[in-house]
């Protein structure tokens, strides 16, 4: 059974802080993704990675960066958190090509 875990379920940070969101998967998936989920906007892709040390920008990468040093771990970094980054963040992973994505439980980030 695929397991995608995220480091925190809830996180509260202050404007300007550097924020790290961690995601780990245990299925040896090559692809990993970060989305944000907002009411009325659905899921929007922030960044994805199809291999270690590889990253590609998604639809809304501004204000975010990512790191993938190991295959199982994909980190999302908010360099200087802002209130408009308050959201639910979802991590997902999949095998290469067009395949089912497996999602983590999400991290609800509030930036004050």
């Amino acid at each position, binding site marked *: 059974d695929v397991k995608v875990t995220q480091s925190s379920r809830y996180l509260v940070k202050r404007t300007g802080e550097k924020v790290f969101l961690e995601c780990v998967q245990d299925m040896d998936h090559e692809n990993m993704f970060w989305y944000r989920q907002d009411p009325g906007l*659905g*899921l929007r*892709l922030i960044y994805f990675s199809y291999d270690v040390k590889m990253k590609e920008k998604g639809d809304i990468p501004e204000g975010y960066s990512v790191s993938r040093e190991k295959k199982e771990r994909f980190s999302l970094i908010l360099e200087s958190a802002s209130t408009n980054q308050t959201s639910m963040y979802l991590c997902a992973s999949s095998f290469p*090509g067009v395949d*089912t*994505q497996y*999602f983590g439980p999400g991290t609800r980030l509030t930036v004050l």
Partner: protein
Amino acid sequence: AQRVTQPEKLLSVFKGAPVELKCNYSYSGSPELFWYVQYSRQRLQLLLRHISRESIKGFTADLNKGETSFHLKKPFAQEEDSAMYYCALSGNGGYQKVTFGTGTKLQVIP
């Protein structure tokens, strides 16, 4: 550019009534279409994908390339079907970005 449109934010139906969640897409090539579901306090998960041509939990979806639609249907709604449903599209071949719609909340009234 690829786009997925789910025109309804909320769909309320009575238990036992038929359900149809609409999804239209825009893509220049041959797409892969998916439906994902998120039940209350659970993670997002795949419900079905068009290439599998299977029925999951009584739901089916047919890809209509002429109308560029992939509507999700169920003949008789059940209370446990209440959830958030997302239609998603991916291109074919190699790595392709997955684009999600804005989601439709299905509320089944007992």
